[in-house]
């Protein structure tokens, strides 16, 4: 018995050492962000002199050329609609694929599944041209439309898989009572689907927030740049201002980490369900 307890302690301690190793870069980033530059010369792990300061964070937030405050605002302007709109459209599509039969249903669904594999590079140049023609280049609406369309295949796939696991009896009862299909969807199917919708929304929001490539090709006015686009611009040309860069990186990752912490279960369920089934 004693041996067993001893083994358990060793096992747990080793697990925590792994956790510590994994978190070191984050600790380093935080230390670099909250300490003045001259203290960092001997490494962020050197704690002989320790002063804490928020200067780097304030500087990144109010950066003279690429303020992160503006970037955060812009990213929210894009990420909120680019989450809500595709979720609504794709939930309906996923419902349609799971409940109704129509011509070419299976081929259309396979087409959507194939799109999950596409790299964004495959649409980049034509999307640039389309948005140019629509006068939506360097325009949030253009970026929202692209993110919407890009999110539709996986959310449709995800929601369809969710709806196929639901029994149809309740919906049929509603239909017997004379509710229309649209009414049945909004008053019965949609409320039941809320956990799945939260999962999909958590992931879609995080991905749009984290997106760099689409923003890079579609947005270019300095005051319209999204938060992710501002990070490489903060690096500096001749030397890297690590304090500033670390603070900016922390500010940028706060939002997805917050989403993850608040919606942990949904987030992981989304990830597992989105990739399996």
């Amino acid at each position: 018995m004693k041996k067993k307890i001893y083994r358990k302690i060793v096992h747990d301690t080793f697990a925590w050492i792994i956790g510590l190793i994994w978190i070191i870069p984050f600790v380093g980033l935080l230390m670099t962000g909250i300490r003045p530059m001259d203290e960092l010369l001997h490494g962020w792990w050197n704690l002989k002199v320790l002063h804490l300061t928020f200067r780097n964070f304030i500087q990144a937030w109010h950066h003279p050329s690429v303020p992160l405050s503006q970037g955060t605002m812009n990213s929210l302007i894009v990420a909120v609609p680019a989450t809500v709109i595709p979720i609504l459209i794709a939930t309906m599509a996923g419902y349609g694929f799971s409940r109704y039969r129509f011509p070419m249903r299976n081929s259309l669904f396979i087409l959507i599944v194939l799109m999950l594999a596409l790299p964004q590079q495959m649409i980049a140049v034509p999307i640039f041209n389309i948005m140019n023609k629509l006068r939506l280049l360097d325009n949030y609406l253009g970026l929202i439309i692209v993110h919407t369309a890009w999110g539709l295949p996986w959310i449709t796939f995800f929601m369809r898989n969710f709806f196929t696991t639901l029994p149809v009896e309740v919906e049929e009862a509603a239909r017997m009572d004379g509710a229309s299909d649209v009414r049945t969807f909004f008053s019965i199917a949609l409320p039941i689907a809320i956990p799945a919708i939260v999962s999909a929304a958590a992931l879609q929001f995080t991905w749009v927030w984290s997106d760099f490539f689409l923003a890079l090709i579609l947005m270019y006015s300095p005051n319209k740049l999204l938060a992710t686009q501002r990070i490489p611009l903060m690096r500096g040309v001749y030397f890297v201002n690590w304090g500033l860069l670390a603070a900016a990186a922390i500010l940028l990752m706060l939002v997805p980490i917050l989403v993850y912490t608040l919606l942990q279960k949904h987030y992981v369920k989304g990830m597992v369900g989105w990739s399996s089934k």
Partner: protein
Amino acid sequence: MNRRAKFSHFGIFVLPALVLICVFVLYPCLRTISLSFFSGGKLTFSNYVDVLKSRDVVNPQGFSRGEFPLGALFDNLIWIVIHLPLTILLGLILAVYLRNVKGGSIIKSIIFLGMVMPMITGGVMIRFIFDKDIGVVNAFLKLFGFVPKTWTAYPETALFSLIFGSIWLWTGFSMILYAAGLETIPKDLYEAAQLDGASRTRMFFSITIPLLKPITIVVVTMTLLWELKIFDIVYVATMGGPGGASNVLALQMYIYAFKGLDFGKSSVVAVFITLFTLMVSIPMARSAGERR
């Protein structure tokens, strides 16, 4: 159900999504394919020839001299060869090992953090841990007498630094999926095996691994897709440098299209990436089909 009802279902529920997908995803894809075959208004393979001759994607000279740059395509392949087995093994081992640890879910969250944050900050952090003065890797190696250097700034180490950094970022993905998979394995299977006198190793190889096969297919596919599409990390950490030593296909596509304004060549690279991603998705699509 009559014909009209069928079409109204299709029209109300599926059509809006389908129209958006066709206009903003499918059409651009087809357009990229056609761009890759046109040069100077003629239907030709010359873009493909140009890309392969340019040494950006495949660089035979690098091979004969045995040094970087080897070309973007080979950098992606090296990425896969190192990153795929390591992240999957690490993820599986961690999922099993952390199962009964006190506070294991906190450790899992820490490891998963790399997956949660934007990859652009992931790239910043990779550059950060390999930095000459402030990087923790150098601080550690100094203990063993190594001379500190910025590992991402030298052609012979840039790519490997990015790859090992990305293992740190991505392991959380396979770990979380395997952890979820482990939950679905019934406990009595292990109990029965224990009664039959099976050892722990034996149980791992004859129960855990086979029952996790569907998860493994998913993890391998998603990891391959991620490795083939890798962009942000490289863009912010090395910009493919120095001298193209850490270039990858997705970045090369961006450079051709938006720095060089050569849409023919950029489309060729995009088509290459898509061919690979579609190829690696086949097993997952098939296993999804089997279960239906």
